[in-house]
C-alpha cells in the first residue's frame, strides 16, 4: 500500500525543496536559472507525492519539485535567504569564528561559494523555509540574542540597562528601531540584525553586501551610485559616516545613531570614509 521506490528517508530529504537557482539568483545577481541547478533524485525530478502517491489515487508518481523557491514574501524571503545563506555558508564552509567580519574577507562571488558546498546542501535548504518552525519572530529574536548556558561563565554582570542603545532609522520606513550595540560582536552581527529588523521593507541587496569594502574604491562607488541601501551613523562629533570605517569596538563607542539610507544619498560621505580608512592602514 505504501510502496514507493524511495525510502521515507530519501523522500524526507528531497521533497518540496526550493529551487536552488531562484534562491541564488536573487542573492548574487547572477541568473542561475539558465544552469537549472535543481535538486532532485538521480534520473529525474524529486518525489512529489510521496508514500501513497504510487499506490493510491491517480496522482503522478514522480513530480519535479516545485519550481518556485518562494515560501513567503519576496521582500522577507529574499532578505532572510540572504541572511541565512550568508550564515550557513560561513558556518559550513569556512568554520569562521564569530569575530570575523566581512571587512577582512571581502565577499567572494556567492555562486562560487555555493558550488563549494558538499555535504551540507540538505541543511542549507532546510534552513530556508520562511515561517518554519512556527515560532513568532519576537521569540526567535530573543533566543538569538541569548547567551547560551555554556557562556554563562564568561558573563560578569549581565546588563541590559547599561547597554549602548542607539536609534536606527531607515529611509522610507515609518518607524524607528532601537538596538543595543553591545549585543553584537562584529559588524556582521549588526548587519544581520539590521537586515532582519528592516526585512519587511525593500532592501535590495543590502543583506548580500552586508558590509562595505572601503579598500575597494570602485566597488564602494558602485554601491554608492546605486539605489541600494547603506548603513550610516552619527558619531560623537555629530558627523555622519559610513558604517564600517573604524574597528568595531571604536564604532560601538562613537556611534550615537544609525540611519540606513540609499547609496546615492550617502555618496557625500564616501570620500571622508575612504580617507579615514586609508590613513589607518
Amino acid at each position, binding site marked *: 500500500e505504501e510502496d514507493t521506490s524511495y525510502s521515507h528517508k530519501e523522500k524526507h530529504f528531497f521533497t*518540496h525543496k526550493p529551487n536552488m537557482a531562484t534562491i541564488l539568483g536573487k542573492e548574487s545577481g547572477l541568473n542561475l536559472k539558465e544552469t537549472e541547478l535543481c535538486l532532485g533524485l538521480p534520473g529525474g525530478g524529486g518525489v512529489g507525492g*510521496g508514500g501513497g502517491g504510487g499506490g493510491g489515487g491517480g*496522482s503522478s508518481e514522480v513530480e519535479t519539485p516545485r519550481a518556485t523557491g518562494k515560501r513567503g514574501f519576496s521582500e522577507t524571503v529574499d532578505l532572510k535567504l540572504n541572511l541565512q545563506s550568508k550564515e550557513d555558508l560561513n558556518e559550513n564552509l569556512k568554520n569562521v569564528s564569530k569575530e570575523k567580519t566581512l571587512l577582512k574577507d571581502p565577499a567572494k562571488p556567492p555562486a562560487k561559494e555555493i558550488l563549494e558546498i558538499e555535504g551540507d546542501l540538505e541543511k542549507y535548504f532546510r534552513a530556508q523555509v520562511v515561517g518554519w518552525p512556527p515560532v513568532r519572530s519576537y521569540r526567535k529574536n*530573543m*533566543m538569538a540574542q541569548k547567551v547560551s*548556558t555554556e557562556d554563562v561563565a564568561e558573563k560578569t554582570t549581565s546588563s*541590559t540597562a547599561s547597554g549602548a542603545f542607539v536609534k536606527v532609522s531607515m529611509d522610507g520606513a515609518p518607524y524607528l528601531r532601537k538596538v543595543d550595540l553591545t549585543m553584537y560582536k562584529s559588524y556582521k552581527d549588526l548587519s544581520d540584525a539590521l537586515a532582519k529588523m528592516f526585512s519587511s521593507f525593500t532592501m535590495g541587496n543590502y543583506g548580500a553586501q552586508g558590509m562595505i569594502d572601503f579598500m575597494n574604491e570602485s566597488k564602494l562607488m558602485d554601491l554608492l551610485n546605486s539605489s541600494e541601501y547603506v548603513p550610516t551613523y552619527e558619531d560623537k562629533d555629530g558627523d555622519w559616516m559610513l558604517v564600517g570605517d573604524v574597528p568595531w569596538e571604536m564604532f560601538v563607542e562613537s556611534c550615537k545613531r544609525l540611519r540606513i539610507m540609499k547609496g546615492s544619498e550617502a555618496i557625500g560621505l564616501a570620500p571622508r570614509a575612504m580617507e579615514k580608512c586609508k590613513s589607518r592602514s
Partner: protein
Amino acid sequence: MNKMEGQAPSPLPDQVLENVLETVLHFLSSRRDRNAASLVCKSWYRAEALTRSELFIGNCYAVSPRRATARFPRVRSLTIKGKPRFADFDLMPLNWGAHFTPWAQALAQSYPSLRRLHLKRMSLTDRDLTLLSLSFPHFQDLLLTCCEAFTTTGLAAIAANCRLLRVLDLAECVVEVADEEVDWISSFPETQEETHLESLVFDCVECPVNFQALERLVARSPSLRKLRLNRYVSMSQLHRLMHRAPQLTHLGTGSFSASELDPEPDYASAFAASKSLVCLSGFREIWPDYLPAIYPACANLTSLNFSYADINAHQLKSVIRHCHKLQTFWVLDSISDEGLQAVAETCKDLRELRVFPVNTREEIEGPVSEVGFEAISRGCRKLQSILFFCQRMTNAAVVAMSNNCPDLVVFRLCIIGQYRPDPETLEPMDEGFGAIVMNCKKLTRLAVSGLLTDRAFGYIGTYGKLIRTLSVAFAGDTDLGLKYVLEGCPNLQKLEIRDSPFGDGALRSGLHHFYNMRFLWMSSCKLTRQACQEVARRLPHLVLEVINSEEGKADDIEILYMYRSLDRPRDDAPKVVTILH
C-alpha cells in the same frame, strides 16, 4: 399592565413581551446561546440585539463596523480579531490589513459607554489609541494581543486620559519606537491619589521605562494584582516594586538579571512576603544564580512561565520540585528530557504545557524528544493542552499520550524537521496522530507535523468530530487528505494549511462547509486561480484573497486566505492582494 380608561393607552402585548424578553435575555451571557436566541423570531432578534453587551467579532472583515454597531447598539465590551495566525510567522505581506481605524471611529460614535476592548492581531495607530482614550469616559479595560503599529505615544494617551483605567495588558505586541521617545509611565496622572489599576502588563514593550514613575504608580495602585514588567527592569528594581505591591497575584519579573555589583537585597524575602503570588513569568535575561529567590513562592504557584529563561535541567529541578500545584507551565527545551521528567514527577495537576525551542534550526539532535514527552504523559494525567516543539518523536510516545491523557482538548506537536518519520520504525506519524483523535474525545484543536500521509487525514476526518482548529504543514499526499477533513469534521472553523499537495478537487469538496468556517488558509499548495474563481462565484458571501508575491504569476496561487463576510469585500488591501469575486 392594565390602565384605567381615559388614561394613557396600555402598552401593546408585544411590547410587554419584548420588555420581559429583554429582562430575561439580559442574563444570557454565552454568545452561542445568544446567536441561537436571535434566530427564534424577529422580536427575539431585536430583544437579543438590544441586550447584547459583550460583542465578539472573530474576523474584523466578516462584518463592517457600521453593520455591527447598527445591530448591537448597547455594547460595553468588544473583542475583535484581525489577521490569521500564520501572519505571526511572516507569511503575510506588511500592511495586509486589519486596521483598527475604521472601527475606532465607529465605536467612538456608537458606544459612548464602552468599557472594555480586546484586540488580537490588529493594526492600530497612535491616533486610534488617542481617539479611544478621549471617546469613552467609562473606559476600563484595554487588552492588546499581538497587535502592532502603535508607539509609546499611544500608550501615553491611554495612561493620561483613561481615568478609570483598570486593565492595560499588552501581550506579544510590537510597540514601535517613536521618533521622540515618550515616557508613557509618567503619563499616568500623578494627581490621582489612587488609581484603579488592577492589571498592568507591558513585558513586550521593548524600551526602558522611567523607573521612578513606575514605582510611584505601583505605590498608589492598591488594587494592583497583575504586574508584568519588561526586560529593562532589573532585579533590584523588581525588588523595590515587590516591596510596594505585596498583594500581587501575577508577577512578570522583567529581566531577573543583575545590573549592579553592589551587595544585593534579600530577594527571597520579597518572594516570601508576596503571599498571594500564583503566577510567575518574565525571567527575560535570567541570571540563574537568582533562581533560589523564587523558592518561597513555588508552593503556591499555579502558573509558571520560563519560556524566555535559558536554564538547564539541574536549574529547573531546583525550582520545579517545589511546584506541586502547578497547572500551567511554559518552558524552553533547554531543560531537556531530564527536566521534563522532573516536571512529570512533581506536577500532577498540570493542565497546560508548552515547550518552546531555543534553537529553531533543523538539527538531528535536540534536547527534548519522545522520552520526555512520554514521561509527561505518564506523570501528568490531567493534561488538557500541550504545545511541544522537538526534533524527534515516535508514534509510540504519541499513542501513549493519547491513552494516558484522555482529557486533551488542545494537541499541538511540532516536529521541527519537515517530513520526519518515526525515527525508530521509519513509518509516517499517521498512527500517532490517529490515536490522538481516536482517544482524546474532547479534542478541539490539533496541529500536526512530521511525515504524514493521507491516512492521517483519514483518521482526523473519521474521529475528529469536535475539532474546530486544525493546522497542517508539509503533510499529506493527494487531494484526498484535505477531502477527508472537509467532509468529516463538521465543527471545523479554522483551517490553516501550508506546503501540502492539496489542490482544486480538495477545495471543491468543502463547498458545503465554507460558510460555517471562520477562515481557510492555504499557502504553497496546489490551487489554481480558476478553482478559486469558481468557489468565489458559487459562494458569494465568501471573500477569497489571493496573495502572490510576484505579479504576473496569477495562475499559481501562493496564498489563499478565504473567509465569510456579510459585507462587500474590503477596499484597504495592499496591491499584492487580489480579491476574487
